[in-house]
């Protein structure tokens, strides 16, 4: 079972790295939003550093969404999903492997790139550190929630928009606590750990509900 998990994880990472894979797409999209906003707002550094965490979090949410519709659809279209069902590993395991691979190529690079992009929105060093921490802990929640939507829309031809409409409302709590934790780190009335722990809890809940939910959606999908 562990072997199947690892094999699938490696396959998806390989696919993401090949031509036409979704590897850097999310990161570039993230970069685009974060670079555009300072141009739109003008050179007000105080304003930028105040809304910086919010900009980075909204950009991370959108960057997570952008490749999500292909998460299961690509396997559905070429018949690989039928192959994945034939393993002795349960479908939940298949979903988990795919989502972890997806997070490694989209969520993780966002968190790692956050300090660089933090410069563009005039974040303080503590603010950058907090951004990395909150994105690292919070983006798994976004990916797992998105996976349920991806599974539900896997057999739709152009499911991207429906997917976004379905999952964005459920991503709002993650966004709220992610931004408030990042803000708390650079000053404010609440301690950093309070929203941060709730963010971690949201990720853990999403990991369970998302995995089981996406597997159930795939089972009933045919």
């Amino acid at each position, binding site marked *: 079972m562990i072997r199947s998990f690892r094999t699938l994880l490696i*396959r998806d990472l390989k696919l993401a790295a*090949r031509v*036409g894979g979704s590897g850097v797409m999310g990161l570039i999209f993230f970069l685009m939003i974060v670079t555009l906003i300072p141009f739109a707002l003008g050179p007000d550094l105080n304003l930028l550093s105040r809304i910086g965490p919010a900009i980075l979090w909204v950009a991370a949410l959108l960057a997570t969404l952008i490749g999500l519709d292909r998460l299961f659809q690509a396997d559905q279209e*070429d*018949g*690989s999903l*039928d192959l994945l*069902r034939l393993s002795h590993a349960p479908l939940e395991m298949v979903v988990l492997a795919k989502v972890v691979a997806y997070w490694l190529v989209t969520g993780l690079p966002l968190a790692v790139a956050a300090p660089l992009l933090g410069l563009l929105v005039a974040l303080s060093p503590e603010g950058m550190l907090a951004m990395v921490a909150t994105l690292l802990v919070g983006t798994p929640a976004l990916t797992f929630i998105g996976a349920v939507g991806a599974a539900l829309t896997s057999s739709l031809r152009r499911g991207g928009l429906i997917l976004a409409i379905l999952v964005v409302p459920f991503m709002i709590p993650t966004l709220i606590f992610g931004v408030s934790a990042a803000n708390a780190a650079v000053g404010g009335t609440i301690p950093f750990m309070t929203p941060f722990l709730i963010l971690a809890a949201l990720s853990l809940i999403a990991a369970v509900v998302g995995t089981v939910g996406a597997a159930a959606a795939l089972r009933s999908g*045919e």
Partner: protein
Amino acid sequence: MQRGQGCESLRLSVNNLACERGERRIFQDVSFTLDPGEALVITGRNGAGKSSLLDILAGRLHPASGTILLEEAGERTLSESLHYVGHRDALKAALTAEENLSFARDFLGNPALKPREALEAVGLAHAARLPVAYLSAGQRRRVALARLLVAHRPLWLLDEPTSALDTASQENLRLLLENHRENGGMIVATTHSPLFLRDAKEIRIERSRSSAPTGESA
């Protein structure tokens, strides 16, 4: 060790299977049994439900009624005991033929032939390092069929396995199938052109009486 893990006594019995898709009865009262070494060829017009029957056996669709029983399978479920090669090749175009097969080998468990050997068996050893995107339809089909050889599974479900294959490859496929049967395997295949399998059972699926006028379509 990997050959015939308990599949000598494996027996597939299907009873009064019926299939509905979108409120329409596609077929009903399909029954057959399959013992080790036996092959079943399913024929029928386009849209008669041949692929749907394979989908039900593979666990992709739920039957409207009827039972499928795999006897003497031990711990394994039906879907863990079968290979399914459908119309869609289940190959990743960005990966090479060899990578596709080694993924299937590791993922499915019960490894049998190495990817290279399996590709040799379908006459594609030279294409092992090519991305599947560069292969022709017939070559892709052969890579998909090579998947049958990399993991040992007693029951093979093949949906029109000869489509897009040239005559030499069709003969090669026939030999692979006969070899699988000699080792105690079972085969269920849908087809329009004869597969020339030795004393294979055959069932013909017809549309249920409620739908569609009878009489051959052109």
